[in-house]
């Protein structure tokens, strides 16, 4: 499976609470890229593969939808 530029999408609707990484950071599938708040829970968002953060498409306080692309890895 080619994983050029994995798009990390939101698994549910919520609000961006905290962004933990910045472009250039190396991450793997146990790195919490950012934290959403949904259903009164803080929910960590993990990528499904390893890579380097290319860009973060949301900022703290944004409301996001299911399937919305939150970050792109390279």
């Amino acid at each position, binding site marked *: 499976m080619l994983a050029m530029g994995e798009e990390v999408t939101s698994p*549910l609707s919520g609000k961006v609470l905290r962004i933990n990484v910045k472009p250039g950071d190396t991450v793997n599938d146990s790195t919490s890229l950012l934290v959403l708040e949904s*259903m009164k*829970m*803080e929910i960590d968002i993990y990528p499904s593969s390893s890579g380097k953060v290319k860009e973060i498409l949301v900022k703290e306080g944004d409301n996001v939808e299911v399937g919305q692309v939150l970050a792109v890895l390279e």
Partner: protein
Amino acid sequence: MNERNIDPYRKLERIRKRLKEKWIRASERQRAKGKLSAMERLEILLDPGSFVPLQSLVMPMYAEFNEEQADAMGDGIVVGYGTVGGRPVVVFAEDFSYKGGSMGRSHLEKMEWAIKLAIEFGVPLIGLYDSGGARIQEGVHSLTALGGVFFQNVMASGWIPQIAVIMGPCAGGAVYSPALTDFVFMVDKTSYMFITGPKVVKAVTGEDVDSEQLGGASVQTRKSGVATLMAKGDKEALLAVRKLLSYLPSNAGEDPPRVNTGDPWDRIDGELNRIIPADQRKPYDVKEVIRRIFDKDSFYEIQQFFAQNAVVGFARLNGYVVGIVANQPKFLGGVLDIDSSDKIARFVRFCDAFNIPLITFVDTPGYMPGTAQEHGGIIRHGAKVIYAYSEATVPKITVIVRKAYGGAYIAMCSRKLGADVVYAYPTAEIAVMGPEGAIEIIYKKEIEATPPEEREELIRKLADEYREKWSNPYVAAASAYVDGVIEPKETRPTLYKTLCTLLKRKKRFSKMPTKRHGNMPV
């Protein structure tokens, strides 16, 4: 001795020699693909020297016995019995080196017979699948015989543990045999499972995918949940099967084997009080909790990478095997959704079939909202969990860790679904919904009447009152929905003493009124 008397022995010698050579050739062919031969796999799976091969001289459907055709003998599958950890099992292993492991009638009839044997002996069945599919030249004979295998898988279901290890291709209708077993293991990169292969997919839908993307081990363990474990290499897969078997009884009439793990039953672990945050919004890893409570290194997770918002698996409590179900706050806040509901329901029913007591840890904010879940049928899927727990007659212990809201509280093995004993931690919050949501509904007028800058203060005050009056575990304890409030650190001895008592209870079979069978939502 005259010439005619020693000849029969020489014939057998010749046949055996040819078979040995055949397996050497088979090993070489498989090795070229990074795989092992059927015989080599069985040597790893079974205790040394325990294997008794059966029906190894069966010829393919249209052939007569011919001592020179060693390759054809067995019709591409090895069947027999042996032991794993000293306990008898029945096995079959497809041999890809003969006609691509294609399933002819003889091949399939051996497979069917192996399952029947396992049923009759009351021992686990392990199938190693490595086949190109039904043998086209044998047409309806193949298909019919395949149906015979599926039927026996179903007859065996719930009577003996059935484990499938996909160690090569498994395509077309053939996938339904593993699909009917209890656990499917796959080998990364050298195995795949799908109903329709890439070529036909491309022809019909135009979609361009390869076997790995369509049904490789990664996809089946992470996306579809069809397989529980992806192993790196044949050996790792087979050793994982041996490990799984050590938790299971040989059949539904037996208890799971108890093993002395040397971990003291009355161990108190103060770290547990610290690991579970009092702040309901903060996630933690429930697997850390599980590992600390149960016998050291005894946790064997099932479907680790599928629906990670729920955790299921086997563990030992002072040597006794238990089945654990837990919400995982680290993933999606521990919400229940379609996949996690399926995962939990299937595991609960397996444990109930095989006399494995269930211990459920509850920390969930409820079901995941949204059209994807609703349109996907969360109603149907969520119902399975309620059905499975209600139906189960093994000992059921529930521990309410933190949040237990609404329908999810009920579904996660609550009192009325037949939980024998329910404990709650001081951090438990049992309510129709969380404080903030509830307050917005109950005190809507009061909140709207308050000036905006004072609202947050008011909501916080009301939320604290709500927790004090309604959602703390003592409210539930006062009505005996919860049997006791305990500290996380004392969970291990508490659960052990409870379990011991429940295990002494006479085994109950169905509590349901006599009927053909219930209609579980699927």
